[in-house]
């Protein structure tokens, strides 16, 4: 069986999530604009996936039996870049040029430019369908790999997403795992005020999925759920509804998450944010 690249302990994973937040701030400082708060809501999810759950070989990004990870909410690639650099998919020096013209690391990930990106992202609602296609391909190949797709809760407004949800249960894609970063906020306001998407969990269940609802910042719980995923041949797709806080980890962003959906931290605010994050890392 393929192995995960690293299997960090729960305290180490918590530390990694904070490091992702710091690296996000650092990259956006260079780019001049970026998605902070929706990256911060997913920091623990990304840390647990890449440093514990996913079976990868960074030396062989095209390894056929690797687990796949698709960023449905593609605008948080800034949180993925430091992880992929750290794992060795590309030089860390690339991070310093995030968001610059003609550089590979962009606001949304491009599979043609960056090793380790299994599929490009940008248009919400597409990547669960793409993930289903990857799972069907794995079945043809007789593979044991799993495909993880990180979705935003606002992304659940997209009609195509539910076409993919329907298809996944119809084709019994037990190797498809959707994680909803349910931070409760989208560009137009609180997600369910804009267009009610609740109850997310029972809606997925009604479509034939196995659904688990957890606190998406509780690293121990994320580990527990992701360690206990059914094997890829189980025949039932899984959704993890991760209840999160947009802007998590920086109190002034938590207080006004939408203002920090896309923005730029001035020097004073950057210092405040970094100090708050670092205070939890010591």
């Amino acid at each position, binding site marked *: 069986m393929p192995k995960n690249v690293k299997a960090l302990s729960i305290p180490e994973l918590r530390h990694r999530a904070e490091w992702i937040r710091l690296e996000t701030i650092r990259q956006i400082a260079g780019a001049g604009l970026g998605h902070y708060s929706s990256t911060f809501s997913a920091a623990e999810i990304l840390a647990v996936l890449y440093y514990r759950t996913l079976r990868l070989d960074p030396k062989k990004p095209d390894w056929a039996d690797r687990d796949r990870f698709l960023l449905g909410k593609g605008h948080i690639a800034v949180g993925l870049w430091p992880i992929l650099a750290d794992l060795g998919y590309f030089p860390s020096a690339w991070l310093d040029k995030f968001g610059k013209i003609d550089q590979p690391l962009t606001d949304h990930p491009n599979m*043609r430019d960056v090793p380790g990106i299994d599929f490009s992202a940008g248009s919400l609602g*597409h990547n669960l*369908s793409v993930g289903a*296609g990857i799972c*069907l391909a794995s079945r*043809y190949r007789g593979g044991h790999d799993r495909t993880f797709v990180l979705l935003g809760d606002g992304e659940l407004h997209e009609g195509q997403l539910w*076409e993919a949800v329907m298809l996944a249960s119809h084709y019994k894609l037990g190797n498809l795992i959707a994680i909803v970063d349910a931070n409760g906020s989208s560009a137009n306001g609180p997600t369910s005020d804009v267009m009610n998407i609740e109850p997310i969990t029972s809606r997925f269940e009604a479509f034939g999925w196995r659904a688990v609802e957890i606190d998406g910042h509780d690293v121990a719980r994320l580990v527990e759920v992701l360690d206990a995923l059914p094997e890829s041949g189980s025949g039932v797709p899984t959704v993890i509804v991760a209840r999160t806080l947009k802007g998590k980890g920086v109190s002034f962003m938590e207080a006004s998450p939408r203002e920090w959906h896309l923005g730029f931290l001035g020097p004073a605010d950057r210092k405040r944010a970094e100090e708050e994050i670092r205070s939890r890392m010591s």
Partner: protein
Amino acid sequence: MNTKSIEMADPFSYTSAAEVEGGAIVGRTLIELAQQRDDIVLIAPDIGRGPATMAFIEAHPDRYIDTGIAEANSVSVAAGLAASGYRPFVFGIGAFLAPKCAEQIRTDVAMNKLPVTMISAWGGLDMGYFGPSHHALEDINILRGAPHLTIASAADNAAMRALMLAGVADGLPLYIRAPSSMGSDVYKGTPRFVRGAAHVITKGKGIALIGTGLGTGLCVQAAERLKEAGLSPTVVDMVYLKPFDSETICRLAREGHSLLVVEEHNTSTGLASLVAEALGRNGIAAQLDAVGLPDGDLAVAVPQQILDRYGLTVDGVVAKARALARKQ
């Protein structure tokens, strides 16, 4: 003159000889491909179990994925299969495939340069009886902005087969406009197409009949009539709409040809526009006219009646060609 029968009472009966013939080539070619390769997959949303799909499904049941009536999902699922090393075909109703899936085709398939072949079933006016929602007359326009996408238009069964084989060999994103069931046979053997190149069927002088899809067959037949009238038309199959062979168009104009475009597409955003753009960008003045569909409310009827209404017939092409010739 079209003499093929149409089952008026039930347009979905698949009993029209032309429909069986036209549609079946897709299934036959898929079977041919699947005998050579183990990476062929067919996704055919809401196409029914017509001959195009049934032959393939019966031969390779595990390689057929039914996505239900969900075209957008079909294209993105195909992109996922292609990203995993497979060569999926999406065979979708022409009126919906490009309009409804424009974004999935652009974003998931074309921008990622993935080897997905998309084929419009019942292209052009094949479903003209259903209403304007089922006219497939804007797909060139809708898709030509998608980067890396090849757009081809099959004039007949032989062309469809050649394009499907070439698409798999090239391993690039490809959209093929299927031949309308009203089309006629153009090629006797397998045409040798070069991606992005116009295919010159007959080299003549004075007037060039430039067809695509059903239009190519009309051009070939009209050329015979025009020869009887003492003209010697050049006949070109613009089998590729993208990449577009501006060079051949400009050369024909420089040689003194008047150009008549024949297309089962609206003439405001289709091949005629591409030809005009090629001439304009290269500063070449030429007589240009088009036989095709106007931009606006179109008639609703069985295909031949609509084609007759707008002059997408051999008679219509001959009349416009003669009018162009008189201007020279």
